């Protein structure tokens, strides 16, 4: 720094002047010495006060200059833009699922998530059941399927409940109005949610054609509205998602805030910082990044970014490894269950007929019209029989649900299928995903099926999941060796243990540190500028005047 600035010169002058200012005299009486001291001290104090004013003005002026430089550097918060882009991706994600031939209409229209949300092994309130019913009716209405009480005659209990529900569905007090009906039903039919659930499934089968036609209409409409070509949607989605992720990864606003909020220590990231040197050296073969030629450094940087993307996918792979193992086991046993699904369906059809017959008998016994005699005893007995029949059906539908994944495996997988094929096949069976996720995450209090399914989707449709597409699902493979070997060949010193399930987080931490620096360097705000801003922000602020500048004397 140039020491010859006016301010520095003034500091030196002041220091010398104050230090050398004579406050005492050696001659004279005590009184004279005291008087001299008082006068000298007064005079020096006046001088200091004058200098203080001047230096406060300097302080403000320097602060103003610093502030104006920081203001020019501060990056814009682009969160809203990213949010909009994420929303666009959400739309594309629903289109992807909507256009996929692997999913059935129930899944595509959102019926599956509604029906599975009222499983009786979940804690479901009456209000939640009513909300599901409202949403179910609304989707049906969109598909031009107007449901009436005749569609809810699966059992006498559902019919009684739905009569009140349909009469009051638009009432705000619906939950209170229907509570009494529910209580009356509940004592006769404790598994009432099971009845409702099976009735909804019955409706889906009854109007299958209408729903399929609605999906076709909606697909055409969506393609026109979103200007989307069905064949290109996947590649467009992958491209858009990757570029958005990279854009966010480079965003200087987020990086700067991580430093300002002390989530990351900027001193570790600066050139020459021991942590930075150690981390950059970690994946070089001779342990010295600085010794690499600029071309080698560029290659190293590119591969570190790719490796970072792969690590994120690998971490998710480990999270969902239980699905892979289960699917492999199921694939090996696929021949054992050939035709089982169709057989189960036939069995269900028979039992459904019995249920329907039981209900007809009940209507007669309960007095189906004017002047018809009511056989109370018989109708009570038929209610009990209906409960038994529905419990049986419930069991059969569960077995059918479990068999669905076997059908998907038989249809979609071969000996040469990739890991991606295997995982996508699992995703096609909503009942399978529901069961396996609920079982696996049963100990996790924060588990939410819909959230987990969304995360699973993000994993499957991750543009960086190249190894999932390349690795054969049914071949003998060790995923940590596959990944480590690939990056060793590409010039990174990665060992198999670096990507082990238990150690992957530590590796991700180091790799993320390096990519953070690389992304900052590729962005619009340098690390040095971020360091400058963070040091400025650590200064106690000086209030600005109304014009936005500091009132400098």
């Amino acid at each position, binding site marked *: *720094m*140039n020491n010859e*600035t*006016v*301010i*520095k010169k003034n*500091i030196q002058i*002041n*220091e010398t002047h*104050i230090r050398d200012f004579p*406050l005492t005299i050696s001659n004279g009486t005590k009184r004279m010495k005291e008087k001299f001291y*008082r006068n000298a*001290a*007064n005079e*020096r*104090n006046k001088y*200091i*006060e004058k*200098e*203080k004013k001047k*230096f*406060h*003005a*300097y*302080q403000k*002026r*320097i*602060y103003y*200059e*610093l502030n104006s*430089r920081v203001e020019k550097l501060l990056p814009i918060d682009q969160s809203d833009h990213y949010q909009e882009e994420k929303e666009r991706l959400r739309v594309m994600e629903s289109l992807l699922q909507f256009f996929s031939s692997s999913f059935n209409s129930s899944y595509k229209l959102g019926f599956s998530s509604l029906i599975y949300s009222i499983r009786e092994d979940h804690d479901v309130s009456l209000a939640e059941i009513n909300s599901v019913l409202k949403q179910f009716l609304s989707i049906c209405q969109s598909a031009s399927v107007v449901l009436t009480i005749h569609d809810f005659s699966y059992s006498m209990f559902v019919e009684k409940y739905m009569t009140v529900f349909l009469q009051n569905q638009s009432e705000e007090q619906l939950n209170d109005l229907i509570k009494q009906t529910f209580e009356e039903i509940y004592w006769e039919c404790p598994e009432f949610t099971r009845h409702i659930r099976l009735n909804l499934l019955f409706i889906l089968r009854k109007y299958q054609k209408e729903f399929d036609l609605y999906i076709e209409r909606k697909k055409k409409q969506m393609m026109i509205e979103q200007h989307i070509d069905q064949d290109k949607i996947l590649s467009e989605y992958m491209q858009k998602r990757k570029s958005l992720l990279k854009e966010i990864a480079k965003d200087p606003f987020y990086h700067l805030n991580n430093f300002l909020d002390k989530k990351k220590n900027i001193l570790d990231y600066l050139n020459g910082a021991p942590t930075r040197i150690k981390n950059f050296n970690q994946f070089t073969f001779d342990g010295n990044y600085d010794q690499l030629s600029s071309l080698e450094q560029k290659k190293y940087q590119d591969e570190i970014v790719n490796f970072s993307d792969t690590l994120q996918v690998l971490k998710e792979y480990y999270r969902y490894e239980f699905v892979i193992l289960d699917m492999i086991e199921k694939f090996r046993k696929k021949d054992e269950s050939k035709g089982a699904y169709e057989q189960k369906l036939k069995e269900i059809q028979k039992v459904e007929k019995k249920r329907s017959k039981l209900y007809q008998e009940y209507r007669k016994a309960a007095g189906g019209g004017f002047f018809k005699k009511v056989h109370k005893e018989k109708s009570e007995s038929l209610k009990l029989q209906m409960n038994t029949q529905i419990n049986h059906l419930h069991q059969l539908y569960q077995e059918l649900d479990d068999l669905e994944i076997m059908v998907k495996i038989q249809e979609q997988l071969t000996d040469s299928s990739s890991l991606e094929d295997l995982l996508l096949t699992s995703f096609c069976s909503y009942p399978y995903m529901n069961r396996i996720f609920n079982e696996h995450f049963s100990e996790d209090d924060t588990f939410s099926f819909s959230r987990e399914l969304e995360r699973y989707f993000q994993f499957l449709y991750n543009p960086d999941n190249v190894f999932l597409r390349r690795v054969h699902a049914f071949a003998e493979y060790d995923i940590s060796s596959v990944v480590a070997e690939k990056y060793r060949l590409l010039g990174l010193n990665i060992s198999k243990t670096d990507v082990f399930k238990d150690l992957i987080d530590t590796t991700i931490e180091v790799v993320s540190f390096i990519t953070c620096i690389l992304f900052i360097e590729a962005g619009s705000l340098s690390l*040095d*500028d971020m360091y*400058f801003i963070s*040091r*400025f922000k650590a*200064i106690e602020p000086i209030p600005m005047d109304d014009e936005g500048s500091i009132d*400098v*004397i």
Partner: protein
Amino acid sequence: MDSQVINELVSLNNNQLLQLYADVLKHLDFLDSNIIDLESDGQNDE
């Protein structure tokens, strides 16, 4: 304020400017610490 001071500030790089700010703060502390409190000196004498 002296235009020379302002010109000098503008010509400094960010690190130099931050350092100068720190020097000014330090100097303000120095000035404060050198003020003699004559009243309390007088009371002490009494």
